[in-house]
């Protein structure tokens, strides 16, 4: 297995499994190697075109994604058309957007009027929204080339992308393993060189965890920093849209493109967005890094612990001071999360009732079945059974939802309906809200003493596909290090900080106080500059 392929030629050979010495093709391949920021420069200097760039990535998807499965849909023609328009406008000397000509992949959870938005669910398999989400609108306004829609856990519920109703996504570093989730497609396509930039969403770690497992940079902004308008909700008080990229600089560029106040989202923050890409190279002076006692406890993989501790040493070598802090309520974070998130989800997903849009069960078959049940009960003289027999409407709801949702989604709807029901509300939902406040207070206190908190992203590197299929509880614990940021509304970033002996990426998570994205990015950039983990690419060779 390849470790550090810095030589472009070697990289191409290993990555594609063939030698590419044809110069055009070679150049097109090397386009895949550049960071988004470098590509923008090449575009501006006329060294490449949007069409050439789009084609290079479409070729990469064509060649690679049958193995990885990161994209649910790619509309090559539309992407090329769009790239041509941008090239034409560039040719005329028109003012272009911030991402002009750059391919961007979008998680299939953000509405785009030009394509379906499925949330990787049967329920929305044919749903085509009549409007653009704010994030998609901003990407379009920035002249990005939206190349495709990435796979995810159904309705963003899961940590392995295995809950997608449509396909499995594989980790580019090891095809037997998960890319993480729920933004598994978003992380895998960046790691696999199929998109320079990608948009994910993070409700309990769904950007940072797959970024960590795929060895890319992924960032969850402060709650309210990026508009949720047009983001199909999983848990409204936790969901946040964020960037995935190969470098912190690229992530900064994408974040500043999508962030900002949106009057269509009442929870969006009315605060000016700093120009992250302009300040990212400024090192943080007198940086104080916090490490959390509770994070280095039982269950943490030794290699992960070593990599994270080494990363902290890197910061020390850069002049940072390291302080041990305590987040006493963090041990309740997963439990709290799995009350709040399903509660909100049970409500948010109530709209999928098959009445107005989305999947609907076969009506004739349903009515026939219902009639048969009625006859059976009549024959048996079961009056109680007859009385409780569904009306056709109720049966339509039941059956459509039973067929349209996958098991994990149903599990969470049931959990949420339970925790919100009369008699249980106080003991579960209300208590969870109280703990949530305590978790936030822990962070507020901690950030009095430190600027950033460093931790693992996950306790282990990428696990084998199917490893947790029958163990939802273990799957929930995958979010251990990431859920707190969602509960507290804080920004967090995941960046590569090493590899396991098996060659799997290990991620470092940094968290900052609310609206501390600038600090977070500058801090992450310092580490990135001091190490070369970010520059490593996976290989297909086994």
């Amino acid at each position: 297995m390849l470790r550090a392929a810095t030589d472009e030629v070697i990289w191409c050979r290993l990555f594609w499994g063939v030698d590419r010495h044809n110069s055009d093709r070679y150049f097109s391949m090397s386009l895949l190697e550049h960071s988004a920021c470098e590509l923008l420069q090449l575009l501006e200097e006329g060294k490449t075109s949007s069409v050439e760039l789009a084609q290079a990535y479409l070729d990469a998807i064509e060649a690679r994604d049958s193995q990885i499965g990161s994209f649910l849909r790619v509309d090559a023609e539309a992407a090329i058309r769009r790239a041509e328009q941008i090239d034409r406008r560039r040719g005329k000397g028109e003012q272009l957007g911030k991402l002009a000509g750059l391919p961007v992949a979008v998680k299939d959870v953000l509405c785009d009027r030009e394509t379906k938005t499925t949330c990787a669910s049967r329920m929305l398999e044919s749903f085509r929204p009549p409007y653009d989400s704010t994030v998609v609108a901003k990407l379009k306004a920035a002249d990005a080339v939206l190349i495709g829609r990435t796979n995810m856990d159904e309705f963003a519920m899961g940590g392995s992308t295995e809950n997608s109703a449509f396909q499995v996504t594989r980790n580019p570093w090891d095809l037997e393993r998960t890319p993480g989730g729920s933004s598994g497609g978003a992380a895998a396509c960046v790691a696999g060189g199929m998109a320079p930039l990608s948009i994910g969403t993070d409700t309990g770690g769904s950007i940072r965890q797959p970024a960590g497992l795929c060895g890319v940079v992924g960032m969850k902004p402060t709650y309210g920093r990026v508009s949720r308008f047009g983001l199909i909700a999983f848990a409204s008080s936790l969901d946040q849209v964020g960037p995935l990229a190969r470098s912190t600089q690229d992530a900064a560029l994408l974040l500043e493109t999508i962030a900002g106040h949106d009057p269509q989202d009442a929870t969006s923050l009315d605060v000016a967005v700093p120009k992250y890409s302009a300040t990212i190279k400024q090192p943080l002076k007198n940086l104080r890094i916090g490490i959390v006692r509770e994070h280095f406890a039982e269950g943490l993989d030794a290699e992960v612990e070593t990599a994270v501790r080494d990363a902290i040493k890197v910061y020390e070598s850069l002049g940072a001071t390291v302080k041990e802090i305590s987040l006493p309520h963090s041990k309740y974070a997963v439990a709290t999360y799995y009350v709040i998130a399903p509660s909100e989800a049970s409500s948010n997903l109530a709209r999928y009732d098959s009445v107005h849009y989305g999947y609907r069960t076969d009506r004739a078959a349903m009515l026939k079945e219902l009639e048969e049940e009625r006859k059976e009960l009549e024959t048996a003289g079961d009056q109680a059974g007859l009385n409780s027999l569904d009306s056709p409407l109720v049966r339509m709801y039941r059956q459509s939802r039973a067929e349209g949702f996958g098991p994990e989604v149903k599990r969470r709807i049931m959990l949420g309906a339970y925790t919100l029901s009369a008699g249980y509300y106080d003991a579960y939902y209300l208590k969870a809200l109280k703990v949530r406040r305590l978790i936030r207070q822990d962070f507020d206190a901690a950030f009095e003493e430190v600027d950033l908190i460093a931790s693992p992203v996950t306790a282990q590197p990428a696990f084998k596909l199917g490893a947790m299929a029958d163990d939802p509880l273990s799957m929930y614990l995958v979010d251990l290090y990431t859920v707190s940021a969602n509960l507290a509304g804080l920004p967090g970033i995941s960046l590569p900080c090493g590899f396991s002996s098996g060659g799997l990426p290990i991620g470092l998570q940094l968290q900052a106080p609310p609206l501390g994205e600038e600090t977070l990015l500058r801090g992450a950039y310092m580490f990135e500059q001091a190490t070369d983990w970010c520059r490593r690419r996976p290989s297909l060779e086994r």
Partner: protein
Amino acid sequence: MDSPYTTVIGLEVHVQLATNSKLFCGCSTQFGAEPNTQTCPVCIGLPGSLPVMNRLAYELSLKTAVALNCEIPEFTKWDRKQYFYPDLPKGYQISQFDLPMSSGGFLEIHDTKDQFEPKRIRITRAHLEEDAGKSVHDEVAGKADSEIDLNRTGTPLLEIVSEPDMRSSAEARAFLDELKLLLLYIGVSDCNMQEGSLRVDANVNLHLETDEGKIATPIVEIKNMNSFRAVERALDYEAARQYRVWQETGQKIGESPKQTRGWDDAEGITLGQRSKEESSDYRYFPDPDLAPVTASPERVHEVKAGLCELPASLRSRLLSEHGLSLYDADVLVNQGRAVVDYFLEVAKQSGDSKSACNWVTQEILRILKDREISIGDFSVSATHLADLLLAVKEEKLPKSRAKDALELMDAKNIEVAEAIEQLGIEQVDESALMTLCQELLDANPKIVADVQAGKQQAVGALIGQAKKKNPNVDPGQVRKICLELAQKD
């Protein structure tokens, strides 16, 4: 009238607030549009859409709550009320559960017909919520298809809940009348029941004195009442029905679940509805898409200070400052502020509240009603009507010709002096009148004889003749003089 029971009534009134757009999106709230043409991703609950509060709806509800003497908390939030129904596209209604925008108010009611003493009806709470859509069930030919119109979905409603403080259908009616009047005065709703801008549900049960002591019958919620008259009828029917059921079954409150019954206006009865909501758990929880709303005490004070004079205060001012009867004051106030203002102006300029009241409540209101116009469209201004009243008072215009003058003023858009002139009205000299009367008596000896025989009404025939000879004569005077002269003979 001794009733064997006391009827106990509480009302829930849903008022559509007079906003141009819906509660959480920019769609129009105009009534009567083609089905599903006033919708957008937000109000039809498309995936990814988010609600943003219409500030005006909150301001209107704040105004209403303040006018209803409610307490306004500094902090109110939005909750999701969850249930499945095809005309509820999100699967939940955005409403307010445990922290409503107002609570603990009251509304004073009175009865001009003296069926009950004036009393104070307590308001439990008033909260904002979004309306659901409309299901149209088409069950022709056994197809049982339903159609859904989402135009109404998301329309802002203020739900006003009263305490069970009313003891008769008349009190309930008075509460509704007074509430509607208040809402119209402060301009927060058009209160159009036909268009669903005002909807009433009633909770009713009976309190009885029995050998076992005081007992109450199970509470029934009545829905589907499309007019205030229907509310009165439904309550009367339901009270009688509950008494009958109690006599038959002896069932007390708590012995059966709360029942919902629908009012059938044509049959004049209430019918039990499928109790689908009886055991329902709405799983209320705070809507994470919306921020809580705050109202500072200063803001509440501002709203209070900015309120117009409310009907109750206006009514008592008409009583104390203008000496009107409660009945007349009610008639005026019920017509709305513009008519009251018209009256006040006429009274002020004519210096005669009593006449002003008579003229406005009788003549003017009749004309408005006949012509189906509002006071603003009436051509005779308050000043001109006051001039007319003064002309009568100063005897420049005989009372008997005043209506003619008003008609002319209205038709030709002229002032009273010109109307008097155009009508050829002149003061009739006393001696000329005497002469005229004597001539008539002379010409009608039979009438003179009748009068002398005690049949005073016989002079009536002379009044018509006198008017024919001189239209300016005052019929009263003619009668008086003729009687005097006839008896002298």
